């Protein structure tokens, strides 16, 4: 069902995901975390685009020759996902800015009140 051709893509996707998750799990700097989240998003998006890919397929434009075309839905999905990802990232950066203004640092405070 899934073409073998795509296997490298999966590897790339998995690698991006792992790097992103590793970043989230190991960093305490807000910007680094945001960048890691971006990597996670990208990894997932790559995966989805790959889902719809057909070797040799064309764009599904109605020109009478669409026997073999790439599934458009994942692309639509990814477009949406990218938009959402961008907005989340923008918001995250805004929050980070706000945090920085209040505390003068971008490090999440380990000794802060927000625990337990």
């Amino acid at each position: 069902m899934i073409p073998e051709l795509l296997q490298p893509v999966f590897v790339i996707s998995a690698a991006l995901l792992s790097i992103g998750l590793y970043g989230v799990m190991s960093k305490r700097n807000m910007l680094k975390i945001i960048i890691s989240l971006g990597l996670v998003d990208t990894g997932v998006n790559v995966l989805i685009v790959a889902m719809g890919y057909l070797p040799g397929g064309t764009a599904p434009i109605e020109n009478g020759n669409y026997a073999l075309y790439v599934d458009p839905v994942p692309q639509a999905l990814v477009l949406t996902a990218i938009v959402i990802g961008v907005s989340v990232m923008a918001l995250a950066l805004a929050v980070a800015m706000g945090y920085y203004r209040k505390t003068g640092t971008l490090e999440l405070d380990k000794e802060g009140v927000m625990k337990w």
Partner: protein
Amino acid sequence: MLMETFYAFIIGSLVVLALNRFPRIAAVVAIAVSLLPLFALIYWAPLVGLTLPSYLSLLRFETEISYALGPGTILLQITPLGWFFLFLLATTFPLVLLFASSFVRDNAGGFYASMLLTMLGSFGVLLARDMLTFFIFWEIMSWSILALVLRGHDRRAIVSYLAFGSLSAMLLLFGFMILYYKTGTFLFGEMALEATPLTLAGISMIVAGFAVKGALMPLHVWAPHVYSRSEEPFVAFLSGGLSKLGYFGMILFMYGVATVPFFATWGTFRGVPYFGYALAVIGAFTAFAGTVLAIMQDDLRKLLAYSSIGQLGYVAIGIGIGTPLALTGALFQALNHTFFKAVLFLAAGAVYYRTGRWKISELGGLGYKMPFTFLAALFAIFALASIPITSGFAAKWLLYEAAIEQGFLFVTPIMLIAGVGAFLYAYKILYGVFLGEPRHDVREAPLSQLVAMWILVLPLVVFLVFPGWVLDITSPILQEYGMQPVAHTPYVITTNLAAYNTIAVILALIGTLFLALILYKWKPQKVVPHEDNYLAGEPPENYEYISMHAASNYYEPFEDVFGGIFRKGAERGWEIVLAGAEFLSNGARRIYTGLTEDYSIYILLFFLVLVGWWLLW
């Protein structure tokens, strides 16, 4: 009119809430509504074999009703047992409200509304025909008590009440669910319990749940805090009326739903099932420990609270023994306790109303200042101490007889010695508050308070002469559970072992009193002030009342001997349980470290565990 009564209570509570700024009007509304159960009581009187003149039953009440409340159905039906306890609650309730009309000052609307809801809940509990109805009304009653407890603003009272309230509710719920699982029905009448360990566990949980409300040790911890930090009219109703509902539930579930043969499956001890015997032992321990603790209190309300705990222990003994004699004794004791403890709490309230003090060591000499309060309290104290010229003795006597009849060698002495201990704290109240040196220049309590107290004394007087009348209304209950009623006439109670004739005692006492009076009136006398004798009429300079009124640390030698053993024993135990829960809680809190890295590790780990669990393994 039955459903309308419930509506009246709900609407009435909303109305009194709205009348918050007009406490007098609110009191009138509340009292008017509170009379409805009394009418119901009168209308249902034929159920227990009482024939009352028909002009007394102004309103007609259905004996059975079902009302669809969405998901469930409210099933109500009056039973002799329900009638008996309704008698206790419905008669006390208007009177405590009457007392409250002059006692409760701030935010009175809230007080009356909560009180009405309490009575609404109790009314439903007493009429409930199935477990759902029972539980709904039980919990309504519980949380409206909580609303009244909140008015006391006391941390220990609130925390212990809600904690033990939840414990009680959950024990009940768990037990109900077990019974439902085993029988497939919620209706009391249709439950045929098999004797399996699971059902026994269910019944035990239910009984334990009721024991919380009945303040049996070691589940009593909430009671002293709540009793000593709430308003007196409410406490009088709580101790006098509401605490009986726990015992109502016990009787209902131990003898109505389960039966003696059911418990006897697991063996008997001297003709009493082990389960009942254990309850009797707990009751005896409660009676004793409650009494000892009451002796050591200086706060009047705490003393009365522990006294309540102790006196209710006797009810548990009676229910545990479970013979006709014992059950009759338990019901009788419940009845007596309702009236004398209500009077005592109200008297304490009246004393506080006039003096503003609760500590026994700060009061004194009020007997001459507030004679009517004193006399009401004196009579109640006589009943509390079970002096044979009061109805209090008949109840205790029935319980003693029942215990001896079963040959209880170890429980009976504890009951008896707890009875003796009651003299000690009874005298402490009398002396510390009403006798001794007059220390407060106060007037007699307001009329509404006196009327409330004296009407509550009335049943004690009536049943002092005619204890048989109480036995008349308890007999239908016993018959319902297939037991033989205790043989009696209006003033003679006869058991297998002995008889007790109230008329003989009373006439003989009148006779001897007459003799003593003749002897006494032989010579005239003159009344002199207190100081005249032992201070030779010349009080020294810097005359300090506190040094003369020997009421502080009154039983100090006693506390030296017992204080270490009894004080706070149960509370410590529960604090350890709480500490254990808080230890667990700390563990759970540590999960939320506040670090995104940890949180995301949790997510990934969870994901990996799921994948590993399902796909690889």
